[in-house]
């Protein structure tokens, strides 16, 4: 419990320090806007799919924008050694990163929802009991996933940003953003497909995965989040020593 409290302190620090950093602003705010425009301009898409698509992209990109840069940034700034000599474990630091990414993702992804409610009248079919847990779970899952991207023991944030782009963008492109989910086998890989389905159902559209669709969606995201979180715990503990070699 003490370690969880301490992880909140780390997340507060991350929120104060990292969310105005260049790589985070570019990947977390500018990319979703540009991709949104690229996907929507000149196409006829139902309002519900515009909002669910935009929310998916914003949540995914914002909640995975901070995780990859914290470790290389702190290694470069030489604050990491100071941090790990405090009575906290590597898991506490990683959890702190997850909370901050989680909050960042949640806050930004609700902006399109609010816009949809105000301008597109989405409130009529909206089910908050599906939307809220879906957003929270997806933010946690994507944040956990982002920790894996900072495993390489580099002190150059740009290096992890390249790796991040190489992994994140294919996940966006294989997901059926801004259209009903087609049951193309490749879409099953991307966690975005499941979050998108939750949003579509929460905004009044039927699930693309059938009557048990929501069950699959939540189940996949829970497994995805925890698998990556525990994987991050193991891999970061292994590479931590390499950050202080020599």
């Amino acid at each position, binding site marked *: 419990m003490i370690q969880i409290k301490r992880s909140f302190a780390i997340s507060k620090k991350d929120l*104060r320090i990292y969310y105005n950093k260049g790589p985070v602003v570019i990947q977390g705010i500018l990319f979703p806007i540009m991709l949104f425009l690229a996907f929507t301009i000149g196409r006829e898409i139902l309002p519900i799919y515009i909002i669910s698509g935009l929310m998916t992209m914003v949540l995914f990109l914002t909640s995975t924008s901070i995780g990859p840069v914290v470790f290389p940034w702190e290694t470069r700034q*030489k604050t990491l050694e*100071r*941090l790990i000599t405090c*009575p906290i474990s590597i898991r506490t630091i990683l959890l702190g990163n997850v909370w901050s990414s989680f909050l960042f993702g949640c806050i930004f992804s609700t902006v399109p929802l609010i816009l949809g409610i105000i301008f597109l009248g989405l409130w009529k079919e909206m089910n908050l009991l599906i939307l809220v847990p879906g957003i929270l779970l997806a933010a946690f899952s994507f944040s956990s996933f982002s920790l894996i991207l900072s495993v390489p023991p580099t002190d150059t944030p740009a290096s992890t940003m390249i790796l991040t782009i190489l992994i994140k963008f294919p996940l966006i492109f294989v997901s059926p953003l801004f259209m009903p989910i087609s049951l193309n086998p490749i879409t099953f890989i991307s966690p975005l497909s499941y979050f998108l389905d939750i949003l579509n159902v929460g905004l009044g559209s039927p699930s693309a995965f059938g009557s048990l669709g929501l069950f699959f969606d939540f189940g996949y995201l829970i497994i995805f989040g925890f698998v990556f979180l525990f994987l991050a715990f193991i891999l970061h503990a292994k590479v931590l020593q390499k950050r202080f070699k020599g």
Partner: protein
Amino acid sequence: MNVIQVSNLSKDFGEVKAVDQVNFFVKTDEIFGFLGPNGAGKTTTIRMMTGVLRPTSGTIQIYGKEVWKNQIMIKQILGNVPEEANVYMDLTGFQNLNFIGELYSIPKEIRKERAFNLLRQFELYERRNSLAKKYSKGMKQRLLLCMALMSEPKILFLDEPTSGLDVQSSIIIKNLIKEYNKNGMTVFLTTHNMDVANEMCDRIAIINKGKIIKCDTPDNLRTVEREYQAINLYLSKEINPSIFTNVQGIKSFSKVKDYYHAIVSDIDQAISGIIKITTEHNIKIHKINTPEPSLEEVFINAIKEGETKNLE
């Protein structure tokens, strides 16, 4: 009582042996110095002692507990200022301290009071709300020390605490470390600066190439060095130093600025011989003194001896 006990400690980085079978202990309330040239293994040792690096072999016990196996518990009672460490530039001085306080679960009110007291002590209070990136190097180092002291640690680790600092910051830091030590805090510091070691440390270990060569109090280290004493001679006129080289008890004789410097193995024999030769050459001795060997001489000789042993 020994608060730190290091036994057969080694750390390898691939083929490189950064620390090699090191043994030493640190007693309660003392300032223990780890003296060595760059790359000697000081930082690697301190990183193992503070739980940053895992030893390849050997053990480090603090208050009888193995550091690597009890990291969280041990870190709770340690304060640490790593070499080259930095403060969070995008946080203010106060926010940096508050953050560290939260990591040690210090209650909010105590955290604030303690942070303000430290900022006052280290002459940073007026700048407490400025971002740390606007601080000078000396101010950042003082803030790092404040961060290390936030938890009121029992043992303070300092890796090159005054390296590259301005005189004012250096004096503030040295004085406050001594004051905290007087109040019962054990201090372990690494340095390559003889003056810092001489001025502050109760005991010193000299380390080179990952091995401890000598470990004792500064006075004892100098006493041992007196095996070869020095004599400084101020003479009435210039002479060729070679006329003294065959005098019994003199190991070397050379000119330094306006005086002559002799390294001697037997001071009585050497002085008798010097008086005899100066009389023969009609030279007056204006002044003669036997300077204390400096810690620097001890250090240089220890490093040389260590390297000779390694060659053998």
